[in-house]
């Protein structure tokens, strides 16, 4: 099995694997046609711009972007796609570029469609609890906008201050509060998309019943391989009348994990339950100064919401269960400001690790809640064996682990150890009955793991679905499906190693 890290080490060979080394610089004719379809200010083909949009927040280094377009309407997206088609170029949609699986990384110098300028909130219909938004609207901006009328958009990935609704739809994002509310799929009613042919289509509907196939469901999580989302109807969630946030400290990670299982076993479904170990807590506290206990081996951030009386009872129950399981301190956030600061800490955790080492490799596995404590213990042992620093911060409520292995890519051999430890962590999760599920998407990172999750038949069917949307495999080629199962992607890819502008 080739892993993501093998690919990083072999960035250049990968590029050639994708179809030879013919350098597809954006041709003048392509750029001129794009400029004619949009306006000169909306097309960028310089080397610096292309180098930047060859990356997202993942570690992957082998992308090569072609010209970058900044459409402002669905019609402009259609125009861009049509020009790309005419020039036989692939397209790659891109939101804020915070993806961790490399989904927005362009292969073969495609036309990159940056949706950051399509960031209008088009319509808010409180009565029907739905809002139409453009794909470039930032997740948190939408929630802030809705706050005035007492609503929010429920999926709250930790990157919510920057990631876009289009990116959320494309990766079917989750977040701490998805424990109670469900992930993006449960909060998107309809999506208007532009297909690879340049045609528009509306998937799903805001009406009560949906007729025929659930194409909306097929599109959500498709990581840009089925088309470009140009308009999204999102469900509005009412802000709860009361919220309580508890911070529990523990003398061991095991005690924190056991508390999480016990809370769920007691029939309580908190809005969120997040655990951070001591190392990550120290890094986070250093940034947010929210009063996180830096001497605890683990902290559990739990939130309950609903009617005031119920919330009070549930908070007391969680506090009691925590104490039974050895919590050394239980703190209740006293104000909205304190609550926000605690969450800010949790949500910036991945970023904060660079205080310790400049690179991190993040795994994203799900294990049964009852196995949480054992798997975590195993993860620490694995990291120790490989002389690596591992940090754990995870969506404890649904058993979604995010072990972060820290390294410095400049240190010889460190990456190899990260790679070896990573593979063992994955094995340990699978052995405990877990899955390689990713709220972060498959992108290129997990592409080669797909075989382990799906049978060959499954994958062929997924490919046929893709074909139905995009027969010539022009939208975001080289992603999600393993190469052996994806249609004509390889033909759409021509690439060279990056490095030089121009």
């Amino acid at each position, binding site marked *: 099995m080739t892993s993501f890290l093998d690919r990083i080490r072999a960035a250049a060979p990968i590029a050639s694997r994708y179809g030879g080394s013919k350098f597809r610089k954006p041709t003048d004719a392509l750029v001129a046609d794009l400029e004619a379809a949009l306006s000169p200010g909306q097309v960028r083909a310089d080397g*610096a*711009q292309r180098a930047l*949009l060859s990356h997202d*927040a993942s570690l992957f280094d082998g992308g090569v972007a072609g010209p970058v377009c900044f459409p402002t309407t669905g019609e402009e997206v259609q125009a861009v796609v049509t020009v790309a088609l005419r020039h036989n170029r692939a397209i790659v949609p891109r939101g804020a570029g915070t993806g961790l699986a490399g989904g927005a990384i362009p292969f073969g110098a495609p036309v990159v469609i940056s949706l950051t300028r399509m960031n209008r909130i088009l319509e808010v219909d409180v009565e029907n609890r739905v809002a139409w938004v453009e794909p470039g609207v930032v997740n948190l901006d939408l929630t802030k906008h809705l706050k005035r009328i007492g609503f929010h958009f429920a999926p709250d990935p930790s990157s919510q201050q920057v990631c876009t609704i289009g990116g959320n739809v494309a990766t079917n994002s989750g977040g701490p509060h998805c424990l109670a509310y469900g992930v993006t799929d449960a909060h998107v009613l309809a999506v208007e998309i532009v297909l690879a042919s340049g045609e528009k289509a509306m998937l799903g509907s805001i009406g009560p019943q949906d007729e025929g196939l659930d194409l909306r469901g097929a599109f959500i999580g498709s990581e840009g391989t089925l088309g470009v989302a140009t308009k999204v109807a999102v469900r509005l969630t009412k802000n709860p009348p009361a919220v309580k946030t508890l911070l529990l400290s523990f003398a061991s990670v095991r005690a924190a994990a056991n508390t999480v299982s016990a809370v769920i076993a007691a029939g309580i479904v908190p809005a969120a339950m997040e655990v951070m170990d001591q190392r990550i807590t120290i890094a*986070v506290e250093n940034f947010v100064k929210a009063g996180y206990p830096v001497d605890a081996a683990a902290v559990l951030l739990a939130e309950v919401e609903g009617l005031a009386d119920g919330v009070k009872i549930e908070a007391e129950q969680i506090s009691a269960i925590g104490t039974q399981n050895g919590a050394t301190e239980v703190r209740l956030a006293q104000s909205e400001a304190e609550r926000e600061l605690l969450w800010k800490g949790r949500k910036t955790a*991945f970023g904060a*690790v*660079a205080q310790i080492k400049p690179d991190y490799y993040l795994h994203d596995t799900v294990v049964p809640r009852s196995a949480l404590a054992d798997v975590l213990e195993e993860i620490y042992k694995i990291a120790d064996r490989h002389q690596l620093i591992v940090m754990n911060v995870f969506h404890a409520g649904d058993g979604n682990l995010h072990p972060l292995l820290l390294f410095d890519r400049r240190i010889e051999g460190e990456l190899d150890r990260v790679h070896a430890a990573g593979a063992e962590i994955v094995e340990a999760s699978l052995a405990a009955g877990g899955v390689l599920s990713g709220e972060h998407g498959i992108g290129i990172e997990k592409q080669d793991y797909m075989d382990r999750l799906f049978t060959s038949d499954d994958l062929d069917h997924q490919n046929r679905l893709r074909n139905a949307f995009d027969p010539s495999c022009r939208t975001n080629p080289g992603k999600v499906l393993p190469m052996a199962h994806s249609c004509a992607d390889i033909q759409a890819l021509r690439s060279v190693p990056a490095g030089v502008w121009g």
Partner: protein
Amino acid sequence: MDLKIDPEELNACVQCGLCLPHCPTFRVTGDEAMSPRGRIKLMREVQDAGAPLTKEVLRSFDTCVQCRGCETACPSGVQYGHLMEATRETLAAKGKVTPRWQRAALMALNRPRMLRAGSAALAIANKFGLVPARLGLPANMPVRQAPLKTSGHDVYLFTGCVMDAWQRSIHAAAQRVVEAAGYGVEPTGALAPCCGALHMHAGLAKTTRKFARAMIASLPDRPILVDSAGCGAAMKDYGHLLGTPEAAAFSARVFDIQEWLAPNLARLPVSEPLDVRVAIQDPCHLRHVQQVHLATREALAPFVSELLELDDEGLCCGAGGAFSVLEPELAQDIRARKLTSIERVDPDYVASANPGCALHLASSGVPTIHPMELIDAAINNTPLPAK
């Protein structure tokens, strides 16, 4: 090309993108090249991977307001200010940024008499409508101003360059407030003509170091109060800039005037709060650099009937020292966002502790005021400027 950025500091960014929404130029363009993550990436490509310094790369660096909103937003503690200062210094030394006319203009800042004469001429031209509006000069620029007088030697009041020439009335208000708290004030005037902040931004760090050494020698012992956030930030950085114990000790004596006043409020006479709704605009150099913006609220609260918060988490207003003059279009787009935030709270006044921000906002019709002018009005019954 070696941009002379500390490799460890440059390597600290994990490219997570959490800083993007806090960057004013990314907010208005959606362009990665105009974002902190993009700028850092380009610095790496140029310094570590030998990529050429094309005009697009220079444009990316040039359009940075140096507001450092990205720095307070970064969970990894990336010292963006250091990265950009090193980059600008290296590029300026090679003549790649800050053309000669800009350097000449900057040199005038340290020459009070020349600056005053020039300013008077400008003020007259402005009165006759001869100055383009995009320069954002105050509508009622004073042609002649009463000098500030020393009332004692407890504290210095730093008066600086452009601000003293254009907005001396703010210094006068600040001085009256500090005196009302029972302290004798010595305005620095010609003792310390300019802090060098704009030079630093333009990559002329050598000049700033020269100004810093001169100022440290001429302002010994006492606390130095600064009523311009940009100047205060620069002076608090002298310790880092010169790396000497004397410079560090000097920087430790520098206070933003609201920061200094907040713990001294009990010494001010009791007064009725003014019946005004005041929105606080946090200058970037107060909020993201000095990080003492909460003191402005503490200092103002007893003196006005209502304090209002803007909902943009301290996103830059686009003034950025000379930025609004050098990049007028971007600056106006950025300002437009700030104006919508201001409209949402609909205040009587917008209090800004930085003259650059105040001018930039005022030139689009926002009723700006310095916090010291409000406190002065409350305790000394001086008239408030027209809204």
